[in-house]
């Protein structure tokens, strides 16, 4: 297995951007939905020769209310917890038929970190040629904002409410990328909707791998996190710039790259934007402790992934350019 690094200059790459939309507009996602944006970017980069297995969740629901569908690529949804296995079966069939169509599995954090965890692990271990994309919006949004194992520490959800005895979610966000990395798959990465060209680059890179690959995309949810829809990109960027969501790449389980942060922002810049953390900005002494705790998590991320860099800047040139042109609608 070989990872082919693209050597085409950025400007050429922009021109050569596949003018293809795997997921059409007109679906029923909320205003500012990070998941819808991420799915659109990922399918654009993946191109038309794909087959998608989608877990139950917001993405599945808002793209396919019968008899409508937003998908321009072959797509199926079976259940919540079996997406890794459905994708494995598709891949086995295509392999048996001698076809090169790439299978992409898609799931939310609930379908990936929690209920679909076993099927995902099986798929990775068996080495199926599948790109698994996890749209991580940090809770069960489709059922009305319940806590998942991806929900960050201290966040409020409908099943981790703050109160006299609690300060939101008691546990830490599951470190899924490390668990995935422990399968020693050829390529795994995290990404954020704040950096569209980074998503495209990582999808293209994963598409070129003949083997299991994994992409975790941080997708703010305006409704579930409590901010206005037009703030999605800002909120997503702050998650990266505070160090709370490290954007990294792993090859065969080893760190192969990280998006640097020139000036790490305090976590409060990120947290105060969101209603799910509002109980941390009260006079409660526990709130102050939790803020310190969250800052320590971010500091730890910055340290272990060596995110702090004076020299580099995560300037998402192509992404900004694309956004300025009004997304991909020009294509």
């Amino acid at each position, binding site marked *: 297995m070989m990872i082919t690094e693209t050597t085409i200059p950025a400007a050429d790459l922009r021109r050569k951007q596949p003018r293809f939309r795997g997921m059409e507009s007109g679906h029923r996602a909320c205003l500012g939905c990070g998941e819808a944006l991420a799915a659109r970017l990922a399918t654009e980069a993946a191109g038309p020769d*794909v087959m998608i297995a989608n877990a139950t969740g917001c993405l599945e629901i808002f793209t396919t209310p019968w008899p409508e*569908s937003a998908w321009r*690529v*072959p797509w199926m949804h079976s259940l919540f917890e079996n997406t890794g296995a459905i994708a*494995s079966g598709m891949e086995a069939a295509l392999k048996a038929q001698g076809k090169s169509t790439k299978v992409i599995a898609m799931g939310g954090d609930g379908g990936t970190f929690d209920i679909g965890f076993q099927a995902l692990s099986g798929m990775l271990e068996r080495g199926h040629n599948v790109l698994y994309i996890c749209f991580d919006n940090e809770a069960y949004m489709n059922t009305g904002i319940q806590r998942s194992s991806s929900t960050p520490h201290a966040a409020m959800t409908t099943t981790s409410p703050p109160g006299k005895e609690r300060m939101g979610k008691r546990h830490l966000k599951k470190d899924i990328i490390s668990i995935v990395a422990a399968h020693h798959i050829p390529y795994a990465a995290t990404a954020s909707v704040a950096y569209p060209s980074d998503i495209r680059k990582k999808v293209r890179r994963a598409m070129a791998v003949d083997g299991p690959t994994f992409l975790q995309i941080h997708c703010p949810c305006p409704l579930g996190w409590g901010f206005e829809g037009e703030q999605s990109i800002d909120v997503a960027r702050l998650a990266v710039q505070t160090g709370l969501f490290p954007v990294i790449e792993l090859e065969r389980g080893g760190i192969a790259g990280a998006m640097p942060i020139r000036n790490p922002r305090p976590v409060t810049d990120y947290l105060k934007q969101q209603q799910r953390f509002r109980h941390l900005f009260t006079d409660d002494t526990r709130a102050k402790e939790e803020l310190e705790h969250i800052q320590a998590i971010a500091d730890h991320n910055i340290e272990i992934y060596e995110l702090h860099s004076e020299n580099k800047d995560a300037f998402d040139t192509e992404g900004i350019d694309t956004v300025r042109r009004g997304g991909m609608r020009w294509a």
Partner: protein
Amino acid sequence: MRQALEGSQAVAQAVALCRPQVIAAYPITPQTHIVENISKLVADGKLQCEFVSVESEFSAASLVLGAAMAGSRAYTASASQGILLMAEVLFNIAGMRVPLVMTCANRAISSPLSIWNDQQDSMSVRDAGWIQLYCADNQEAVDTTIQAYRIAERCELPVMVCMDGFTLTHTLETINIPAQTEVDQYLPKYQFKRTLDPQNPISLGTLVSPDYYTEARHSHHQALLNAQAEILLADQDWAEITGRKCGGLLEVEGTEEADVAILTIGSVLGTLREALEELPPNQPVKLIKLRTFRPFPAETLKAACKGLKDIIVLERAFSPGSGGIVGLEVLGALSELENPPKVHNFAAGLGGRDIPLDILPRLLKVLEDPTASRQFKLFDVELERLPVEDR
């Protein structure tokens, strides 16, 4: 070719003759010998297919679903707890109207844990929307497996081939394994019109509002009812090639004048056949082999039971707190007859309990007292071994 083969080995060969492209399985007793034999066929290069050893039965069922959707004939096998773990996927496969074939090596359900045979597993998923065919012997298991693919692919419905664990799966019998040319003549290449294809993208498994759900369910129900014709045709066409039939929907054995029948499902038929020879009863007795449990062949059963005074339904599973499963359905179907026979219902052979030859005279004894209660009973239950309150 006639060979002495273990049931599992024979089924593995039958599966291979159907040229599946993807097989996924997770080991569970007594299904293991089937997939072990298939693995060996793959390892020896006798079967070209993707054999995937998955991490659970849930994934086994899901994987073959994905494979069938991507355009390949697929196969899986399971039993007992495996069937229950698959349950959610089984409903999903059927609702999506996907042609798949699986073998259920029938085994009891825990708790209490039992690795031995009964049919509580497949009976518990009878509402999943699969066709369920039950095999009386290993020759039937071979022939039914091949027929199942044709039925599944013509009806766009999944088929579960049920064979009693150990009693069939681990028993050596002389079996006629058909030639590859015979199977190729009978079973065309896999075709599924809703195959996922980048050239012609479609979306499958979408959300359906109350405006459409009832219609989707009705068409599924109707497809199962209509499948009866395909099940009969599949058996007839197979007989034309091989000279062997499996009994279509159901099969009646015995003389016309008999007004008593025993209806069975699965391998217990062999025990009763032998009992009729060894311990011949005073009255003529018909045997009814219910081969097809889903769709339930109510009309065929009614025709077969016309003129009967009594029918004893002997099954290998039940619904605690209610009673027999097959018995209740037989009772319901026959109630439409003008003079319906009395239905007596027993479950026997639970969790591998031996079904002795003298079950025949003991069952017929219930007919002696016409005033006796016809309430469902477990055969051979030893009440004195239970606490008084449970008796």
